[in-house]
């Protein structure tokens, strides 16, 4: 099973975080990543940039969708990074997630990655089949 560990932090936690020695953060996160790697469970992981100048939101409430700078303001728990791990059980995912060196105000939202078996009954769905044809025709096969 694959799980995505989604890191979310409140604005307050992010401000607190800035007071901590950055070397310490790097060291702790480095040790955590190394543990994941050495255990053979880490598939991917990255942090997301804070700089709002580079970030934007596409809102599909309107048609055409509206693109705004951000996210600003109301996003109390900003998605700030992720890990992708492969484990044998939910309990193992819980164990790894609990070892992440995060502080108060931070959360990990852990989500299982869908597998083909999740779409079992839709395998013959005409739209999915059409997508396969489209993939073939556009040379993505």
């Amino acid at each position, binding site marked *: 099973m694959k799980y995505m560990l989604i890191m979310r932090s409140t604005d307050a936690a992010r401000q607190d975080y800035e007071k901590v020695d950055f070397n310490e953060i790097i060291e702790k996160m480095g040790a955590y990543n190394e543990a994941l790697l050495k255990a053979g469970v880490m598939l991917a992981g990255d942090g997301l940039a804070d700089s709002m100048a580079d970030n934007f939101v596409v809102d599909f409430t309107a048609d055409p969708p509206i693109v705004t700078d951000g996210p600003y303001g109301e996003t109390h728990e900003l998605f700030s990074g992720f890990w992708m791990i492969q484990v*044998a059980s939910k309990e193992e995912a819980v164990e790894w997630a609990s070892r992440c060196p995060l502080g108060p105000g931070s959360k990990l939202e852990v989500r299982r990655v869908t597998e083909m078996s999740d779409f079992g009954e839709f395998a013959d769905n005409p739209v999915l089949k059409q997508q396969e044809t489209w993939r073939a025709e556009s040379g993505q096969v």
Partner: protein
Amino acid sequence: MADAHRTVDAVWRIESARIVATLAKMTNDVVLAEDLAQEAVVDALRQWPETGIPQNPGAWLTAVAKRKAIDTWRRRERLDERYQAIAHDLASSPGADPAAWEPIDDDVLRLVFIACHPVIAREAQVALTLRLIGGLSTEEIARLFLLPVATIQQRIVRAKKTLTAAKVPFEAPDPSEWRARLGSVLGVIYLTFTEGYAATSGEQWMRTDLANEALRLGRVLAGLAPREPEVHALVALMELQASRFGARVRQDGTPVLLADQDRGRWDRAQIGRGQAALARADALGRGRGSYALQAAIAECHATAPSIDDTDWARIVLLYEALGRIAPNPVVELNRAVAVSMATGPASALLIVDGLADAGALRGSSLLPSVRGELLARLGRAEEARSEFVTAAALTGNERERGVLLAKAAAL
């Protein structure tokens, strides 16, 4: 408490190799170390539901196991220097002080070498590696291999008895034996993977859980021995082959052969990881060994837009190189398939007939199945049908039998 059991299993899976390695280093006895660690797990199952999981579960289990070691020796009245050393160690760092627990990668690597020690039979090496390094229970291993628990139990018990009888010390192999012993470790991991990738028995064509366990072991080994190109190459090979899992089997469980696979379902991220691992192997600058050559072949497939747009000439070349450094009839058969794609079925049939004349792969479904394919492409339907029927009778896999009989019927 079922939940506590699953949590302990999860912790064990993460920590077992380091716990057993730490204990083995202290006792110089892998078998005793494993027994002690298992006893500590029993304690954890009893205590953790009430106390909660300790801050550092690995250190907790190790400390409990060390105390049990002392108890064991007290009972045997063997108060020798090993006892003194451990007693001193426990006294100077009481309880589950995380700082007291600094297992070294080298110890885990030693443990890997011992699980794959040549005095143990190959199938027992596989079971012991999954148990000691992978942290799987006997029940889990049995489930993955579709074998009775008693069978796996017996293999592990026998392997442990053999290690004791052969007085195998807790040491890494001598430099003179290093290459062969590492080859044995890689062989155990790849055997585990291939049994999951193309199951030789049972109703399922693939057992992805088993293949994923092998992949995890490979990644662990790459962390332990990062200067060994063939370790990275084995990881690359497994990643690249596993990237096709999603496309190799239909919803109803029937296998889909490479030519018919929907390449859109190949796992692109996994292909990327495989290519990165192969690049790591190449970057060590010691040339390509047999796993790297196989990984390079898998990479050709993984990056080809279609079966026709595959660089078959390059694949033939890689198989030729592979056949020279690791001569093997299966490699030769695969080379024949590549030749048939690069230059046509007639020249490929010569290679396959050469293998058949030499009596290679007798009793395996592989040779008649490839021969049937080539004959069918040459328009020799009657002979092709006979080969497919022969192959169907020889395979132990239900799904594969179905595919072969369907091919025979379609001619």
